[in-house]
C-alpha cells in the first residue's frame, strides 16, 4: 500500500514536472484570430455552431497527442525530423511557407493588441511598439523557465471569457442543446463559418511549437503518459474557452440582433449593454491572448526554421553565434508590429492570405506527421496503433477537404476585397 502511494506520488510529481507545453500550445491556439472567429460565429449564428466544438476537440487531441509523443520519444523537433527523413528541399519549402504564414499570423496578433488596448484608450502608436519590444526582450533576455511561468500564469487570464460568458446571462438551455445537436445547413456563409472554426483551431505552427516545447522541456518517453494527460487537458481547455466566447457573443449580440462582426473590438463593444465590466473583461482577454501568441509565434518560427535548416539557434546563444536565428526572430516581430502602425495597410487581406498559407501548409504537415510517427526506426514501440492511424488519416482527409474549401473561399474573399 505504502509502495502504491509512493508510486502515485511519483506520477503526480511527474505530471507537474511535465506541465507546460500542452497547456501553452492549447491556450495560444485561442489567439486573436481564434477569438474573432468564435465571436463572429456566436454573433451571427447564436448557439448553432456549438456542436462543432466536440469534433474539433477530438481532432485537436489527436494531432497534438501525436506531436508530443514524437517529441518525447525522438527528442527532436518536427522540422529536424522532416529534414532528416525528407531532405533539404522539402524542408526549405515547408519552412518558407511556415515563415510567411506565421508572419501574417503575428500581424493578426499585433492587430489584436492594438484594438484591445484601444478599448482601454491606449493609442496603438504607444501600445504596439511597447508590446513588440517587451515580447522581444522577454524571450531574448529572460530564461525559458521564467518565460514559461509567465505563460502559465497568462493561461489563467482566459478565465475572463468564462466570467463574461456568465455576465451576459445567455440562454443556458439553448446552449446545452446545441452543444450536442449538429445543425447542418447548405448556407454558404454558415459553411464558411464552420471551416473558419476548424481552420483557426488546428494550425501548422502548433505542431512545430508543441513538439519543440516537449523536447525543450526534456519530457522523455517514460514520462509520456503524464504528458499525454496534460495535452488532453489543454485541448479540453481550448474548447471550453471557445465555448464561452461563442456563448457570450450569442447571448449579447445574436440574441439582440444577429449580425457580422469584423474584429475583436467590435465583439467586446457588443457586450456593452451588460455593463462596462463585460466589455473590459473581454478586452483584457483579447489583449492577453494576442500578446501571448505574439510572444510564442516568432520564437517558435525562428526555432523551427533554424533547426530544420541547420543554423545555430537558441536564446542562450549570442547574436554573433546564432545570427540567422536572431535576425529572423527580430524581423518577424519588427515587420509585423511595423505593418500595424502603417495607415491604410490592407490588414484584412493579409489575414485572409495567412489563412490560405496555413491551409496549404497544414495537410503537408499532417501527412508528414503520420508518416514520421509510423516510422518504426524513429518511434520503436511508440508508433500509432491501427485505430489511431485510421482516425488520423480520416482527420487528414477531412482537414484537406475543409482546407481546400477554406482556401477557395479565402481567395474568393480576396477577389471581393480587391473589387
Amino acid at each position, binding site marked *: 500500500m505504502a509502495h502504491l502511494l*509512493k508510486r502515485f506520488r*511519483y506520477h503526480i510529481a511527474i505530471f507537474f*514536472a511535465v506541465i507546460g507545453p500542452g497547456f501553452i500550445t492549447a491556450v495560444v491556439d485561442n489567439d486573436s484570430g481564434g477569438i474573432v472567429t468564435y465571436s463572429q460565429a456566436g454573433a451571427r449564428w447564436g448557439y448553432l455552431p456549438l456542436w462543432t466544438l466536440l469534433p474539433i476537440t477530438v481532432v485537436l487531441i489527436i494531432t497534438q497527442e501525436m506531436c508530443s509523443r514524437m517529441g518525447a520519444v*525522438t*527528442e*527532436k523537433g518536427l522540422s529536424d525530423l522532416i*529534414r*532528416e527523413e525528407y*531532405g*533539404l*528541399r522539402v524542408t*526549405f519549402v515547408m519552412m518558407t511557407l511556415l515563415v510567411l504564414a506565421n508572419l501574417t499570423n503575428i500581424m493578426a496578433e499585433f492587430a489584436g493588441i492594438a484594438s484591445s488596448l484601444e478599448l482601454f484608450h491606449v493609442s496603438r502608436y504607444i501600445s504596439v511598439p511597447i508590446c513588440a519590444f517587451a515580447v522581444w526582450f522577454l524571450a531574448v533576455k529572460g530564461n525559458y523557465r521564467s518565460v514559461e511561468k509567465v505563460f502559465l500564469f497568462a493561461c489563467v487570464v482566459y478565465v475572463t471569457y468564462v466570467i463574461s460568458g456568465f455576465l451576459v446571462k445567455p440562454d443556458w438551455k439553448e446552449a446545452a442543446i446545441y452543444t450536442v445537436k449538429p445543425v447542418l445547413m447548405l448556407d454558404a456563409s454558415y459553411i464558411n463559418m464552420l471551416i473558419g472554426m476548424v481552420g483557426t483551431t488546428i494550425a501548422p505552427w502548433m505542431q512545430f511549437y508543441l513538439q519543440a516545447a516537449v523536447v525543450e522541456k*526534456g519530457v*522523455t*518517453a*517514460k514520462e509520456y503518459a503524464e504528458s499525454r494527460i496534460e495535452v488532453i487537458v489543454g485541448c479540453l481547455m481550448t474548447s471550453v474557452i471557445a465555448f464561452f466566447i461563442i456563448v457570450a457573443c450569442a447571448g449579447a449580440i445574436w440574441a439582440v440582433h444577429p449580425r457580422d462582426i469584423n474584429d475583436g473590438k467590435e465583439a467586446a463593444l457588443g457586450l456593452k449593454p451588460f455593463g462596462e465590466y463585460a466589455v473590459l473583461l473581454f478586452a483584457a482577454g483579447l489583449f492577453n491572448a494576442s500578446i501571448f501568441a505574439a510572444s510564442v509565434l516568432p520564437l517558435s518560427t525562428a526555432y523551427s526554421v533554424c533547426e530544420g*535548416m*541547420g543554423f*545555430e539557434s537558441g536564446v542562450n546563444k549570442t547574436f554573433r553565434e546564432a545570427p540567422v536565428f536572431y535576425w529572423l526572430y527580430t524581423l518577424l516581430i519588427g515587420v509585423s508590429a511595423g505593418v500595424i502602425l502603417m495607415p491604410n495597410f490592407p490588414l484584412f487581406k493579409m489575414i485572409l492570405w495567412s489563412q490560405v498559407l496555413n491551409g496549404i501548409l497544414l495537410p503537408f504537415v499532417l501527412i508528414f506527421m503520420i508518416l514520421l510517427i509510423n516510422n518504426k526506426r524513429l518511434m520503436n514501440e511508440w508508433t500509432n496503433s491501427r485505430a489511431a492511424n485510421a482516425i488520423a488519416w480520416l482527420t487528414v482527409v477531412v482537414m484537406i477537404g475543409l482546407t481546400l474549401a477554406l482556401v477557395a473561399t479565402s481567395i474568393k474573399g480576396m477577389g471581393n476585397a480587391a473589387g
Partner: protein
Amino acid sequence: MAESFLYFTELLNLPVYDLKHRRIGRVRDAALVPLVHQSRVDRFLVGAGSSWLSVRYDQISAIGLSGIQLSDEKLFPYHSDEYMLRINRDLLDQQIIDVNGRKVVRVNDVTFELQRVPGFEQPFDQIYIKEVDIGLRSILRRLLQGAVPRKMIRRLQQPVAPNSIPWDFCNIVEADPQRRLRLNISHDKLELMHPADLAEIVEELGPAEREAIFETIDSEVAAEALSEMDSKTQASILESLEPEVAADIVEEMSPDEAADALGELEEETSQEILEEMEQEDKTEVSELLEFEEDTAGGLMNTEYMSLPDTATVADAMVMLRENEELLENLNLILLVDADGRLTGAVHLARLFLAAGETLLKSLAQDPLISAPVDMPQERVTELFDKYNIFTLPIVDKQRVLSGVITADDIISVLRQK
C-alpha cells in the same frame, strides 16, 4: 579538370561512361568503407535502368564535372553492404559533432578532394572526403542542384562565404553498436573535449545517440560530462544505459552528485544501478540518498579528510600524501574525537606555517562552524555568505561528522534558482 575539388551535390547524378564511352547510368550515391580507408570514396553506386551497379574506386579513370569515365567493364550489381558509409543516406542531412568547434551541426553537402594517382598503366582519379559543408553556401547548392548547371552553381555561390568542417574533426554518432564496429566509428575524439562542452553537445542529441556516446566513452570522462548536466538529464541518461554501464559511470562521480542523480530516478532503477556498484561507493552513495534533497544532508558529499584530534601537523602531512586524489578541492582538515564527533577544523594553509610536532588542535579555527544534516539549504547558503567559508562540515544528531558541503555545491544551488 582544372579544379581539384568536387562537391557531393555535383557528384550526384553525374553520368558514368564505359570504355566505349557509352553512358551506362548516373551516380546515385557514393560510399566510404571506413575499415579500409577513413576518407577515400571506395564505391560509386550507379543507377543503371532499374538496378544499381557498384563501381570500385580503382575501376575509374577520370572524374570531372562532365562525367565519370570507367577503366574496367566488370561491374557488379549493388546489394546492401553493411561495411559502407553511404554519403547520401547516412551523412547528408544528419547531425554530426564538430569536435573542434564543439557543437552539433547538420550536414548540407560534402566537399571532396580530387587526386590524380599514377597507376600501373595510366594515371587515374580518386576522390577523398575533405570537409563537411554547413551554412548558407551549401544550402544554396542543395537548392539549385539539378535545376541549374553545375558550373553555373559554382559561379553563383561565389559571393556567399563558405562554412565547412575538416573531415578529421567530424564525429559521426552511430547508435547501433554492431554498425559502429563495422563502420569503424569511434567516439574517441569526444574524450578530448572539455566535459562541459561534451555535456552541452550530448544534450542536443536524441536519446539513442546520447546512449551510444555514454556507452562507448571512458567512464571517467562520462562521469565528468554527466556532472555538468542538470539532474533531470542525468537521470534520463542513466536510465537509458545498462545498469552495469551506469554503475561504472556513477562510481566515478563524486558521491553527492551520484546521490543527486540517482535520487531523480525511480527507486527500482536506482536500486539496480546501486546493486552493480562496488561496495565502498555503494555504501557512501546509499547513505547520502537517505537525506532530503534540499537539506544539508542532501547537499553534502563524503570527500573530506579527518584526523583524530590528538594528531600533529606531521600526521596531517602523511595523510595528505596518501590521499592525493582529494587535494584538488580540499581546504579544511577536520578533527574528530574517539567517537567520531567533530571537535575542530584546520585550514590547510595553516599547516605550512606550523612546525611538524604542533598539535592540529592548537591550529583549529575559532569558532568552529558546522551544520546539522537536516538544516534547510537556504540556511546553509546563508552560513556560507555570513562566514565567507569554502567548506562547511556537516554533523548528525550526535555531532558525529557525516560529510562536508563545499562552495561549488552552493553555487549549483544558487544557479538553479
